[in-house]
């Protein structure tokens, strides 16, 4: 069994109907794994950019990039080596928890409180996916009620 590696792949696609399902069908049809996927239009262009976090052996990763590139609406596929990667998380806490502690923690992870309601506060952090993992580990003691992660976005350095 070849070792499985985590990889971040960016795909530039023509911004047209059903292009996202072409990408995801390729992964499901060929048994590749998607850890996370983010997509948004590239400003002032007819393209969108997808950031896919995936894992597999070297051979599988090579096939993923080649097969993605075979899709007709795909303009470019980047398999990143040296990149800046960020992911966002939103977390909801009961307002009864220690807000000062939570706020301080958030700051350490490029985050802050974004909403304070009658019963809950919502915080956001934006950091490397691994650090987001850490943050979510640490804040467990403050009884988070709901957590949502964005999936990663990445740029080559």
């Amino acid at each position, binding site marked *: 069994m070849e070792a499985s590696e985590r990889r971040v792949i960016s795909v530039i696609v023509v911004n047209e109907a*059903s292009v996202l399902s*072409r990408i995801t*069908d390729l992964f499901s*049809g060929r048994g590749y794994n998607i850890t996370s996927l983010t997509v948004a239009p590239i400003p002032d262009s007819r393209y969108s950019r997808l950031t896919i976090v995936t894992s597999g052996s070297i051979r599988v990763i090579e*096939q993923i990039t080649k097969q993605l590139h075979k899709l*007709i609406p*795909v303009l470019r596929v980047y398999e990143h080596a040296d990149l800046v990667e960020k992911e966002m998380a939103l977390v909801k806490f009961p307002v009864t928890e220690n807000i000062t502690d939570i706020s301080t923690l958030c700051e350490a992870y490029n985050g802050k409180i974004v909403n304070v309601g009658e019963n809950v506060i919502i915080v956001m952090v934006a950091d490397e996916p691994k650090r987001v993992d850490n943050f979510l580990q640490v804040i467990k003691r403050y009884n988070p009620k709901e957590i949502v992660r964005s999936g990663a976005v990445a740029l080559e350095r």
Partner: protein
Amino acid sequence: MQINGAQMVIEALIAEGVDTVFGYPGGAIMNVYDEIYKQNDFKHILTRHEQASVHAAEGYSKASGKVGVAMITSGPGFTNAVTGLADAYMDSIPLVVISGQVPMSLIGTDAFQEIDAVGISRSCTKHNYLVTDAKDLGRILKEAFHIASTGRPGPVHVDIPKDVTAQIAEFDYSLELNLETYKPHVKGNPRQIKKAMEAISKAKRPLFYLGGGIINADAAYEVRDLVHKTGIPAVETFMARGTLSHDDDLLISMLGMHGSYAANMAMSETDLVIGLGARFDDRVTGKLSEFAKNAGVIHVDIDPASISKLVNADYPIVGDVKNVVKEMLELSSEIKSEKYSSWRDTINQFDELHPLAYHEDTDRIKPQWVIERVGELLGDSANISTDVGQHQMWSAQFYPFTRPRQWISSGGLGTMGFGFPAAIGVKSACPEKISVNFTGDGSILMNCQELMTAVEQKLPVINIILNNNFLGMVRQWQTMFYDKRHSETDLSVQPDFVKLSEAFGGIGYRVKTKDEFDAALKDAVEKNIVAFIDVVVERMENVMPMVPSGGSLFNMMLLEKKEK
């Protein structure tokens, strides 16, 4: 000019030079059929099942080298056609398949005969389109033909809602295509080609591994030149049959699961595999870790994803095999043919040790004999298509192919029912050649309704049924690997194939002796009408030699030597 969507389809087909369309009408595609009725520029062949429409278009394309066109309706019309799309996708056959769809206003309402056609065809087409506005239709059809026929060829599916075929819009087919995301790499990297040629000149036991991409690229004659100029022996894949002529001294027959002993041994002993338009399919390589174990690999393929997918290529060359082989030819003067004479001798010894053969039987007809006999009697004058099973492998092994595009069979998907409709397409593309379909008693029933198409269209396909009252290939595996438990493969209860053919207006023969076979074939050729020649063959015959699934090529099960 301002025309409606249906007229645009017709204009586009005419502009693309399409002379034959295979299809089956229905509610959602009726506007287009109404325009087909009004025109005389191309012929429409009404098959009796949508699956057959696509297979016929495949046969037409394989035999002619042109893009095959099939037209079908929405819902069940489309789902019937999916097998054909998948078959064409696996064998890289250029097709444009046009389907009707329910009107835009009804899409998503679970309307009558609605199905998410582009959703279904996405994984079995090179590309697909749902046309939502008639103003896009011309561009989309132009792109469809372009994408189908360039790069690694494949089927393209265009789904057109009924209201779009009625919608009037501006149409100009002379538009320039601007596909900035689709630019197939057709020219091989010259430096890589040079390196590959250096590797060849250094190799002691090089071997050409010829694949179906050569046929698709119309590169067979360039490949023949390269093989002869270098004197390097060659094996063909199942899909590449006919690249070299059967009587070529440098051809070592087919390799793989049912390849010859010599071909598989040559592949196991070579020190340099020169793969041209071949994709290292599992039916070819057997156990990957043992495949050409001590060899370097040159791999020429138009599809970058095929290179190093299964076997690591030391010299990857992405490009059209015709272009690359032409460049290789220019650099081939360094290679001295004499150098490989002992290697060729070794291979000849392999061939003498275990030639492709079978044991004759005086009482019963051996299926292999039928194929050899057709080869003797019809040879180059026939195009050969097949269904899927034992008869298919025997055809690939024993028919004396002389030219590319003579051999039409379902390789990648292995579609039973492919042969007869494909042969109809072949005959319509090449009326001057006799169209023979080798089939089995299992396969022929999967699209036997096409008797009606062949009779109506006067496309006299000769179907030779190698009838062993078995689903033969599965029976063979059951015999070998399932302790002879012949689960659901006994086809003892059969229709009367003679009457079946006659019921549709064709002709039928039931053949039990060799003389009867000769007479039947001669009669069928002379009468020039659709025929079923139902040949009673030895029931328990196996396709040999055989590499058991997942085994190594050099560990073949061989034909047992007969006691003298």
